[in-house]
């Protein structure tokens, strides 16, 4: 099982703080030795400023109550730093805490409008209070330190501001919105939101960040690739962690994101293990069946660099039409899904969809199927299977009849006539040409206008 665990592969592309939930998860799964995980956590904590947690871990590892001096000193240092930075941006903090601002936030009706108003008020206050760029930069550092200390942002029921609040303010006030710091602020905000579990905000941040990465000018394409790789990994939190009810929408989004050419490239060059999540997203999203073809292609292309039960399942089913091994793989998938941090919640949905998937494919090439065999294949009892098929037929998703005497499912004729085929093939042509023509005229008129000018 350890071989299938992706934490070591993914950790490279995650923020230190984002690794903790993953580590905690593997700790529960018991894939690795307890001590190793504790040690990894401790090492990780030492690199952050979460000194209190580090001290706890230290105690857990060494099973003592004594805390080394070094850690204590570190704690002292962090506190001092925090104080110093707070002093630096005190002036700005007073502005931020200005009641007029919070009022805007509360009163604002639509989010966009309020954001706009907020920004205007902030800028005017900034001028009023004579805030200089140094203050703004200090705010960035302050926010960063806040984040490193685990003070990610406002938690429900408390008024204390955290990194998630400071960073957007920094971005609004900073002189150069394209600077490195402003860019880092975006990442910081996203990380904070993720850690706070505010998925909607996080999704917004993700979109902003994606845009920023795409539009920013990179001197080295490698850097851009790196950034995209990070984004791909971070997005897993945003798209797979929210509760199941909100998932379906985000899963569509993740398919869109991963299949967009630049990100597809990123996945193929840098992190083919993401294919697991992409495959899972596609399978659990019956509305995106058309993405399957692409998925199969990519999995085949990458099958020499990455394979796990999920991609193998897709391969067995859609490349080899080997239903027995697909079944076998599905069983493995079940275990895998349960142990994967991001896919935990999807497990059941995945299995259901995969089953349906097998069945559909099976039906496409068969005209007569034995129900008992099918039940076996679908991992169900015979009665259950019959019921399931009946349901499918009733929902008109399947053109079939059941021969209850022989326990057979008899498929309706799947072969459309030639005329029908021609019709289906040409059906969309009209519309597509129309769109094309529309686009063309639109563009031509644009050019004409340019010419006129």
């Amino acid at each position: 099982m350890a071989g299938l665990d992706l934490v070591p592969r993914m950790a490279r592309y995650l923020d230190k703080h984002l690794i903790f939930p993953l580590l905690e998860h593997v700790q529960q799964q018991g894939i690795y030795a307890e001590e190793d995980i504790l040690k990894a956590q401790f090492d990780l904590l030492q690199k952050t400023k979460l000194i209190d947690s580090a001290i706890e871990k230290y105690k857990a590892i060494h099973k003592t109550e004594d805390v080394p001096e070094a850690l204590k000193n570190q704690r002292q240092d962090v506190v001092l730093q925090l104080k110093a930075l707070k002093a630096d941006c005190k002036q700005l903090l007073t502005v931020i805490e200005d009641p007029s601002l919070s009022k805007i936030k509360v009163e604002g009706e639509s989010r966009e409008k309020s954001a706009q108003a907020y920004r205007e008020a902030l800028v005017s206050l900034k001028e009023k209070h004579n805030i200089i760029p140094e203050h703004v930069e200090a705010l960035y550092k302050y926010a960063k330190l806040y984040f490193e200390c685990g003070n990610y942002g406002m938690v429900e029921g408390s008024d204390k501001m955290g990194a998630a609040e400071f960073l957007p303010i920094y971005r609004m006030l900073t002189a150069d919105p394209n600077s490195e710091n402003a860019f880092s602020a975006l990442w910081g905000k996203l990380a904070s939101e993720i850690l706070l579990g505010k998925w909607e905000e996080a999704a917004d941040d993700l979109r902003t960040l994606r845009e920023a990465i795409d539009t920013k000018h990179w001197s080295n394409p490698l850097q851009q690739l790196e950034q995209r790789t990070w984004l791909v990994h971070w997005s897993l939190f945003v798209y797979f962690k929210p509760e199941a009810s909100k998932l379906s929408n985000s899963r569509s989004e993740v398919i869109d994101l991963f299949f967009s050419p630049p990100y597809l490239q990123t996945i193929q060059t840098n992190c083919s293990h993401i294919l697991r999540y992409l495959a899972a997203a596609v399978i659990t999203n019956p509305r995106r069946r058309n993405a399957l073809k692409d998925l199969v292609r990519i999995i085949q292309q990458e099958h020499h660099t990455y394979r796990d039960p999920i991609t193998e399942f897709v391969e067995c089913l859609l490349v080899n039409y080997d239903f027995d091994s697909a079944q076998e793989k599905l069983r493995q998938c079940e275990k895998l899904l349960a142990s994967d941090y991001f896919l935990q919640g999807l497990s059941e949905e995945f299995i259901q969809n995969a089953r349906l998937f097998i069945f559909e494919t099976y039906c496409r090439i068969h005209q007569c199927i034995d129900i008992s065999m099918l039940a076996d294949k679908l991992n169900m009892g015979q009665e259950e299977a019959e019921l399931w098929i009946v349901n499918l037929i009733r929902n008109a998703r399947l053109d079939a009849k059941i021969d209850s005497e022989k326990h057979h499912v008899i498929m309706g004729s799947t072969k459309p006539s030639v005329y029908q085929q021609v019709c289906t093939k040409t059906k969309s042509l009209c519309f597509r040409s129309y769109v094309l023509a529309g686009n063309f005229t639109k563009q031509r008129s644009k050019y004409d206008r340019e010419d006129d000018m």
Partner: protein
Amino acid sequence: MSRFFAKPGDSSSEEETESEEETSEEESSEDEKPQQQLKKSSSFTKDAPVRKGPRKVVSQKDKRYDEMRQTVKALQNAMKINDWNAIASDFQKLNQQISKASNLISESGVPKFYISIIAKLAQVVEETTKDKDKVKKMSKTNAKSLNAMKQNIKKNNAQYENEIAKFLENPVEDEGEDEDEEEDESSESESESESESESESEDEKPKKKKDDDDEEEDDDDDEDEWSSSSSDDSSSSDDAGRSGATGISKWMKTGDGSDSSDDDGFEKVKKKKEPKVRETKARKEDEDKPKDSGKKEEQMVLTEENVKKKLEETLAVRGKKGTSKKDQIAQLEVLATANISPMMTAQVLVHLISSQFDLITAQFLHHQAQQRDRAGLGLLPISFEIENQNGSKVSSRDQCLWTKTMRNIRRLLEVLSENPELNEENTGQSAATVSRAQVPDDMFEDDEPLQVASNLVSFVERLDDDLYLSLRLLDNHAPEFLKRLLDIAPFLQLAEDVQTYYLKMGKKDVAARLAMRRLEHLYYKHDSLVAKAGTIVQQHGDRVENRAAFIEEMAMLVYQYGDDTIRTKAMLCQIYYHALHDRFYQARDMMLMSHLQDNIHQSYTIPTQILFNRTMAQLGLSAFRCGLIMDAHNCFDELCCNNRLKELLAQGISSQRYNDRNETQERAERKRQTPYHMHINLELIECCHLVGAFLLEIPKMVAMAYDSKRKWTSRALKRVFDNSDRNPLSGPPETTRDVIMAGARALEKGDWRQCEAHILALPVWSQIGSEESVVKVTEMLRRKIKEEALRTFLFAYSAFYDALSLEQLCDMFELERQVVNTLVSKMIISEELFASWDQPTGSIVMHKKERSRLHHIGLQYSDLLGKLVESNEKVMSDGMRSFVVGISVTAATSSSSRTRLAAAGSEGLEGNVEEETEGLG
């Protein structure tokens, strides 16, 4: 060339040619002079000290005098043959030279040889005019010239009346010469061979000439005069030494050596190298006459001062036509052994190495010239043969020169690395800036620095080039070829050491160049081969274990520090290496990342393109070995489609129908040939390509039997098919192509047994790699053939069945249930086969539906329409706005060919995978 050995008194026509040569090679004879004088003065041993004179003679004077002597000689020749035209022009020239040198003459008086020649000329003129018969026989112009000459000489000689009178009274020199001649005569053969061994080929000519002169012309009197103003101390001292007591015996010895050589003068020259060296050394020991000049310095303690001086001297003559390169090398070799400061040693070595290279080049050029002459006969194959023969001569003889050069480079490296303070600044010096005639004393001080360090690398590269060249030229069955192959190992080691040196010096870019050179010698060898060889002999400059990492390391160095061209090359080498070891995906990904496929034909040189082609071929082979027929086909397709495989891989000149190349092109092509040991088996490539192609093609062919406009996957295969269709009768297959064709025909009928029997019987499969991979490939082929046969069978005959049982199919094709299941399912899904499984009975039920031709066309038409719209959308979204106007949206009726083109463009391995790699840049 045999005229070098002509006895005196040979026909005069020969002399004529010689004299022509003399005059035409004015420049060279200038340098030949010392040799002559060397010869001459041997009879004047006792006088030698007198003539020793000041060591440094004003060189301008020498130059002038040399020129004059030159002309004088021409005059003498002309006189001998009574060519008065020539005499007149030479005489005029001589006078011009005299007047040019007027200030010299005013200083030192009129040179004696001038006086002697004009005196003689006057005499001859007088005699000739008296001899009426002779005058009558002359041509008109000649007679006219004679008359003019008569006038001229009278006028001219009036100026020098006194001197002439003095000269006529006392023509001592003539007698001296006669003595000399006698001596010469008595030891004719020795002196000849000796002179050869002493000098190089070009020097022989004048010498021989000299002998003839002496014998035939009594009044050839001025020779010793020349030496009085000699500047070349080294040669005069040399001959002085030679004429000592030991002289003759030494001549005998060396003479033997050269006598034993065959008649070909050129070969002789080569052989003489060794004796020469020996002699130099021998002389060093023998002679004890203290002289500050010439080669004498060997016997002295080789102090730094002396070495420096000697080096200057040697350099001064370097590059002149007449200078013996071998001589120089020998001298420099001796110098290099001297116990002097490392800096000096380095300098000496630098010059030594470059002269060695000069020699190699000279010999090579000579060969090329020879070869061109013979190639002029017009018979290409023959000229190629000859080239090979010549090539083998060059390399077998050069062998020692090459290894010597390598040894010297290694020494230079040692000197440099032992003395890290030595770098280009203080070892720098350039020979090129020294003017030919003048050797300024301070040449070491104010020379522009020439970088020894970068010299070192260029030496190594040069060495590599020569090695490669000889490997390319050699006949691959000649034993010499194997010998040269053995040289690769020491070279690799040298390159490695030099590379380490440069890395230590921090010159990473240079190190990268060296790494590239090494890579070029390593990438095409399979690990297992090296390992096997490693059990017998230690592999110098290579690794037996962990070779992949070794190669990778070198390639990384090049990627990091090399320039664009060698980076590309290194990349290709690494891809080749991966492919060779069946790491197809790795190799493919690298190839795609490099984006070379797009621009290889535009932005790279032909050798790089050849390397690219080789890499593609190897990539294809590796795909084939891995059983990836489609990928293999994509790799091979472009290489094989034009029947130009040979040319593309530079493995032989293809004889072709459209022979529109001219000679230069052809020569250039021949220059690019890959050495034999690097060849990829052409037959294997073709065989893999055709087999792969028919495995892909046959099922399609059967499935789309109606479609007359069907596009073939492989044009090469189509050609083979067309050819075989054209044959009215087909006999049993003989060639590989025939066999493949027979296999394809069998497959067409679904007869996999027959097909397998044909294909697997091909002997060429044993070439595909190690035994292991042969077994693997055979297995793969057997499986593929069965699978494709099943598909073909279903396509061809499914219409005649209502249902087929799975069992039956399994039996028919000896395939496992699972495989048949997969194959048939795939066909059903992709709508190639209109059928479905009946699960309870385990059979395929065919959906009968006969399609009319109209149905087919209708379906095709709708497909094409779809593709058209798709491609239009693509064009639109690609932002190629200018094209949007061209391909109008409403052009739904446009010809299907364009649609096909667009569709084809969007397909294929490259199109798909390339996207992935774009991000890497």
